[in-house]
């Protein structure tokens, strides 16, 4: 019994140490975001003694338009991939049509195509289409990026649904499209939530593609803008506003995650991704 208590204590100590190491950079970021330069040097590790809220004002003024831009991009890309991906997933899971396996292998083949291989030709193509410095130029390729993952996960889910439900709907004379959005979609809302979160995280955080296609600062997404914001301080560092900018970029996802973390954790744990 004594030994059991002992080992439990060791587990907790190990885990708390890991938690501390993982979270300390974030805590440090929050501390520093309220400091001014003298305090940053005087009191490097500790919490701020006085709160300089103007740091956040400086950062917000620089970053505010990028928040809107990122939201616009994600409003196009995330629902876009969920709608097109779930339609395909339904067809692959539930319908019979010629060449189905061929098309499914085409989706599987996407796993083999590294993003990096298509980076340069797609950049040139998007430039030729006149989509540089537009939201579409960022959002449409993001939809294509998410298709494979969305289809894998949702197809797996649709395949597992009992055939009787669909048969019943078909006997009632419902069209396949109707069965898709009246039967399949409502049943798959939790798993769609998980996919939604993962695609949102991905598109929200993407840096490489937006940094290539958006040269106009008024169109920058958060990832591009925060990188430029840091470069502003390369010569005359002001640590408070810089870290306040970092903290601002974290806030939207943090709020979003506070409400949806459960779905994410449970989605993966319940076997959205099986070995």
């Amino acid at each position, binding site marked *: 019994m004594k030994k059991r208590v002992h*080992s439990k204590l060791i*587990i907790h100590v190990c*885990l708390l140490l*890991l938690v501390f*190491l*993982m*979270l300390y*950079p974030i805590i440090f*970021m929050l501390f520093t975001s309220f400091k001014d330069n003298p305090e940053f*040097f005087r009191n*490097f*590790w500790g919490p701020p003694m006085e709160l300089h809220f103007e740091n956040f004002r400086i950062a917000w003024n620089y970053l505010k338009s990028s928040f809107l831009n990122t939201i616009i991009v994600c409003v196009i890309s995330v629902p876009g991939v969920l709608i097109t*991906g779930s*339609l*395909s997933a*339904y*067809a692959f899971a539930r*319908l*019979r*049509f*010629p060449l*189905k396996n061929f098309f499914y292998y*085409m989706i599987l083949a996407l796993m*083999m*195509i*590294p993003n*990096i*291989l*298509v*980076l*340069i*030709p797609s*950049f*040139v*193509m998007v430039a030729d289409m006149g989509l540089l410095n537009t939201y579409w130029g960022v959002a*449409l390729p993001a*939809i*294509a990026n998410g*298709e494979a993952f969305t*289809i894998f996960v949702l197809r797996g889910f649709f395949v597992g649904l009992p055939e009787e439900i669909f048969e019943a709907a*078909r006997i009632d004379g419902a069209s*396949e499209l109707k069965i898709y959005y009246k039967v399949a979609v409502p049943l798959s809302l939790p798993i769609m939530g998980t996919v939604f979160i993962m695609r949102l995280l991905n598109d929200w*955080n993407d*840096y*490489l593609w937006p940094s*290539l296609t958006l040269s106009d600062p008024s169109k920058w997404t958060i*990832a591009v803008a*925060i*990188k430029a914001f*840091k470069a502003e301080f390369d010569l005359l560092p002001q640590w408070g506003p810089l870290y306040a900018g*970092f903290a601002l*970029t*974290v806030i939207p*996802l943090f709020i979003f995650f506070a409400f949806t*973390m459960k779905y994410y*954790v449970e989605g993966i*744990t319940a076997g959205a*991704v*099986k*070995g």
Partner: protein
Amino acid sequence: MNEVINSKRAVKRKKSPYRSQAIMGFLMIVPTFIFLGVFKYYPALSSFFYAFTRWNGFSDPVFIGVDNFVQLFHDEVFWQSCKNVVLWTIVYCAQCIIPPLFAAELIFHLKSKRGQYFYRVILIIPMVVPEIVNQLIWQLIYDGDIGMFNRLLELIGLGNLTQDWLGNPNTAMIALMCMNFPWIHAFNMLMFYAGLQAIPGDVLESATMDGLGAWGKIRKMHFPYLIGQVKIALVLAIIACIQNVTAPLVMTSGGPGYATYVPALHMYLSAFSNSRFGYACAIGIILFIVVMLLTMLTNRLQSQTDFDA
């Protein structure tokens, strides 16, 4: 006669739901394939063409045969970057498996469900930090003047080791590889935890009956059940690491010198700094082949272990 017509009708009636399903099936996958065709298949195929051309991305490409590949073969920067990425991939694979598995095991061994949930959630909080911000923060952690790492060294009396970790060619690559310490990869941790939970209770019970200790139980009972998850994590880690441009681009731009060059970054800079798009596509092709072979190899290993079991 009537009978024939009737049976024909019957056939037609029987067939029509299948036919409408076929049409519907095509219609449903059309949107996906429009996106994939425009932004994936066509660019991927066209880079196989561009790889054999001299091309600045804007004027017409000029066909030059295998020149790009010959040049690549003699390109010292390319070989240096290959060396870097091989080392980095090995380290990264270990980071993606061992610490998350360790954390998942620790959490799994907690008895209380609430404790398990608490640690699972709190360990994935760092996910809300955008990747680019995380990289900028780590760039500052390694900074020579105000870096957290140097301050820590001073604090524990190793002040003579302090330096500009990303600016020194001898330490820049190691610093990049050690980024994100303690490497609790959130997604993998959750996946391993899910794998542990899926082990049937009677298997674990029989292990306890056999008198296996904690380590024996983990080795004999847990690992065999986690092979699938480990394989996924490995494939994803390899693909991610070989394609990783952002981290070296943002943190060091490949420098100092070529110390932190990786092939993907070499490709990126060839195209977007030096306007050598054809050459960059040739590097892209090499990366594609490597990723494909490694993925196939890992799949192969997996089916073999399945067979053995």
